[in-house]
């Protein structure tokens, strides 16, 4: 029986006919016109090339002054703002101090020793077993053993103490923010763009205001860490709540849940997996931040690594870097396994002792190791004599390697720098800003509509007006060069993985692992091989940001429906034709999202490469740190975020339109 479907075909709009609309002019033509007009304009007015200094809005110095005032004089009725920050710092200092007591210092007030390192190593192994089984147990314990044996224990525990304390704070605050944003439309409309901005702002920029308000040391690092790690958690909470199947929510309602019961007894447990992924993200972000916070005087592995890098003790740097990698990978694997941990059906109905076997065995290990520590000091703290280091040998090796290869690398580096990078950089610097503003606007209008166009133009214009044009251009130049190379490397690898399932597994595993490394790590090999300069920056970015290009290419290709590929085969396409005419075009939106990710990661790496010298926005942030030039640091960070947001909106807009055309979701 036919059932008349109501047709909702749009009626032709009569008003579209008379004059030519902007949307009907090809984008390239628009660009051509814009470029011509821009060049003409810059010939007439020098300000189009370089915004006159006297016209720069001194927002940076206003912000700096504001923060100085906040840090020194602000207050209401006898209470100074400084008291508040001091109170906050004291509040956070307590749990941090206790974590340090337990992990490596020993409880000073009670005159107790710290938990013996042996117990921590085995304890992490037990945690690994609880979360993911035997393999993870050995892996986790092995990772920690490395830290002990290579004499990195104290510094590792310092870093870990920040993680251990920051994670619960960030998780709890993120949870509440996420719930709140999910409950109220209005809250979401405020919080969501704020999270966008926060997530696009590089780590280092968070340190700048924190230093002014809280000074140097562990606690400011902790605060920056919590603030930085919170948005991903809140995001995951929102996602988790949104993806709870409506049948489950409704079953809860029909069971007579009050709103509170519905949230805590139904929705949160049902969204647990995504929430746990949020926790995983928080842990990883926390570690990354704890490492970078060495720039504001946080002690730990990050600080050791920083010093080694500054003194060019590359052997030690490699060992410390590996230590950070160990912590990162172990934390990542354990939290991921925890998120995916299946319900332990087998434990049902078993004895209490069996169900609590992990906790019990840790208790036993703790008691035994503490007793042993009373007799053998080595159990408590591994003495220096028993640790090994290959620092000097490694150093020599690295030095030898660098010397041997430098003969080859240097000419290549210089050639690329002189013949390609410098001309490219000069070209970028010569582009008048009005052209960029107009092109971004035209592209935004075409790809994602009026709102996006206005936003993107506004952001670019703000960079000009607040006096960050030149470093911003240099940033874009570095990022763009790196991203193009990322694409040239990442996309073929993704295709390769797609074509041969045998290599797909190891490649994806390597990608997973690489993604857990804090960005700092990637500086080590770069400094080793390339010393400093633009190419070094680009390679560092490259090393960090290629993974998403590989991963999304692979996933995008894999997601193509089988029938599409089969149709291409039966139509007689050669493998090459199939790739170029069918697979890549269909997967392109997904690949573009990967490139989007690559750009985001490249931007966040730009800030880090400031450590090996650059003239971009990252350098602005880096220089703001010791000089307490808060405004400059914050604005430079926000400028990086702005570049990221513009790129993101344009690419997403394109990908969405394209996906709609292709009919994939």
């Amino acid at each position, binding site marked *: *029986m036919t059932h008349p479907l109501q047709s909702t075909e749009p009626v032709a709009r009569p008003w579209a006919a008379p004059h030519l609309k902007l949307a009907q002019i090809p984008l390239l033509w628009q660009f051509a016109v814009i470029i011509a007009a821009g060049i003409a304009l810059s010939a007439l007015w020098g300000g189009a090339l370089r915004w006159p200094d006297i016209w720069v809005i001194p927002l940076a110095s206003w912000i700096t002054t504001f923060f100085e005032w906040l840090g020194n004089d602000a207050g209401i009725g006898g209470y100074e703002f400084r008291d508040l920050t001091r109170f906050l710092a004291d509040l956070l200092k307590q749990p941090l101090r206790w974590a340090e007591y337990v992990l490596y210092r020993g409880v000073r007030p009670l005159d107790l020793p710290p938990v013996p390192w042996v117990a921590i190593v085995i304890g992490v192994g037990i945690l690994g077993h609880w979360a993911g089984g035997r393999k993870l147990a050995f892996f986790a314990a092995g990772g920690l053993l490395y830290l002990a044996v290579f004499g990195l224990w104290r510094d590792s525990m310092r870093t870990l103490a920040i993680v251990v304390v920051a994670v619960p704070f960030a998780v709890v605050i993120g949870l509440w923010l996420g719930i709140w944003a999910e409950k109220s439309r209005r809250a979401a409309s405020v919080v969501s763009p704020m999270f966008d901005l926060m997530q696009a702002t590089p780590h280092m920029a968070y340190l700048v205001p924190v230093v002014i308000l809280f000074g140097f040391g562990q606690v400011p690092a902790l605060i920056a860490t919590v603030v930085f790690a919170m948005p991903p958690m809140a995001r995951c909470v929102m996602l988790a709540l949104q993806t709870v199947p409506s049948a489950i929510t409704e079953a809860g309602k029909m069971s*007579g849940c*009050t709103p509170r019961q519905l949230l805590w007894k139904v929705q949160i447990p049902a969204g647990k997996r995504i929430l746990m992924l949020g926790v995983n993200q928080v842990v990883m972000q926390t570690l990354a931040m704890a490492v970078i916070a060495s720039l504001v005087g946080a002690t730990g592995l990050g600080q050791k690594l920083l010093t080694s890098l500054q003194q060019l003790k590359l052997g030690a740097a490699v060992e410390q870097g590996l230590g950070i990698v160990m912590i990162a990978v172990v934390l990542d694997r354990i939290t991921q396994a925890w998120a995916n941990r299946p319900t332990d059906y087998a434990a049902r109905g078993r004895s209490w002792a069996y169900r609590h076997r992990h906790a019990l065995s840790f208790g036993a290990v703790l008691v035994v190791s503490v007793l042993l520590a009373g007799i053998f000091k080595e159990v408590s703290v591994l003495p220096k004599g028993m640790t090994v280091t290959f620092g000097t040998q490694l150093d020599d090796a690295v030095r030898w390697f660098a010397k041997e290869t430098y003969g080859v690398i240097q000419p290549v580096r210089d050639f690329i720098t002189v013949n390609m990078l410098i001309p490219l950089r000069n070209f970028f610097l010569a582009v008048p800003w009005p052209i960029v503003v107009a092109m971004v606007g035209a592209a935004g209008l075409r790809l994602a509509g009026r709102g996006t166009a206005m936003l993107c133009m506004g952001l670019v214009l703000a960079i000009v007006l607040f006096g960050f044009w030149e470093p911003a251009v240099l940033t874009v130049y570095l990022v763009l060069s790196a991203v193009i190379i990322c694409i040239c490397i990442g996309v073929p690898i993704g295709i390769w993985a797609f074509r041969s399932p045998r290599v797909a597994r190891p490649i994806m595993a390597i990608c997973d692992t690489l993604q857990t490394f804090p960005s700092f790590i990637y500086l080590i090999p770069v400094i080793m091989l390339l010393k400093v300069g633009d190419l070094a920056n680009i390679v560092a970015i490259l090393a960090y940001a290629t993974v998403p290009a590989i991963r999304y290419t692979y996933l995008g290709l894999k997601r193509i429906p089988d029938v599409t590929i089969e149709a291409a085969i039966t139509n007689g396409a050669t493998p090459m034709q199939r790739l170029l005419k069918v697979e890549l075009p269909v997967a392109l939106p997904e690949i573009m999202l990967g490139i989007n990710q690559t750009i985001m990661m490249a931007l966040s790496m730009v800030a880090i490469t400031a450590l090996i010298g650059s003239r971009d926005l990252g350098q602005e942030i880096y220089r703001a740190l010791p000089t307490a030039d808060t405004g400059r640091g914050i604005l430079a960070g926000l400028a990086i975020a702005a570049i990221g947001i513009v790129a993101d909106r344009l690419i997403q807009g394109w990908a969405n339109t394209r996906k709609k055309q292709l009919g994939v979701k």
Partner: protein
Amino acid sequence: MNSDVKIRCRNLWKLFGPQPEAFLQEHGGHPTSEALDEGGYIGAVRDVSFDVHDGEILVIMGLSGSGKSTLIRCISRLNDPTAGQMDFDGKDLLNATDAELIEIRRHKMGMVFQNFGLLPNRDVLSNVLFPLEMQGMARDEREAKAREMIELVGLTGREADFPAQLSGGQQQRVGIARSLAVDPDVWFLDEPFSALDPLIRAEMQDEFIRLQKVLKKTIVFITHDFEEAIKLADRIGIMKDGQMVQLDTPENIVLNPVNDYVAEFARNAPLDRIVTVGAIMLPEKGAESSQSIDASDLIGDVARQVLSSEVPFAVAHGGKIVGSVGREQMLDGLYGPEGQ
């Protein structure tokens, strides 16, 4: 007000779209289909009025998207109706406060979902006792009650299993047990068996009939399947594009469909299980036979008797002879009138 009316709906509307209330007012509370289309609104429920009587099974049918789910979701207030009136036990349901609503759901309503809606993190027992836990019932008491329900649906021994470990049919048994745990007055079932394969479905239908014999609840049951409807229904409501086209006994739906849409639903209906002798008999009493059959007998039950007899049967009703049935009427009854 009729005392045996459990739920009373009058002029119920539910529109989906940007500003449903304002839109409904603009169109004088009664927009046409064209107006709805033009405004970009979906009329999921349109001007529906009906009663659900105490202890009856009301089955609602209709094509996909005809608004069946939305209708019972309005009654259970999972969706807020855009306009209309709704009474539950004589009390206004539409203006119930949140607290009252929670109270009603805790004690008077139970609902079974098409895709079960089980809480994945809880085992069978704690899924079933969940509504009782929400009420704040003591642990021992709610566990005892939940075990009772689990036994009722035949899942004893699986209390400690998790939903993911159960088959579809078993999961739906859990859903049924959960919805019955609070001993509700009214029981809503939204296509409870349509996610199950045919054999299990038949088994669950029998199970359901057995349960209803024990429980005697007021039931609103949604299904796509006309055979299922006939098997279960006291009355059937047929919906189309958000409107209730016909609400009647199965027999009347089959014999007197109000339009082609309804007739189409009933086309392949097993007439012998629906039509009664009373509906096909000739009113004159000229029967020579001394044998008589009852007017409320299903024709399928007496067909063999009537067809094998040379003479028509007398039809009795309330002790009196009211008409007669012969071979011709029986054949018409079984296969439809000649020439159709």
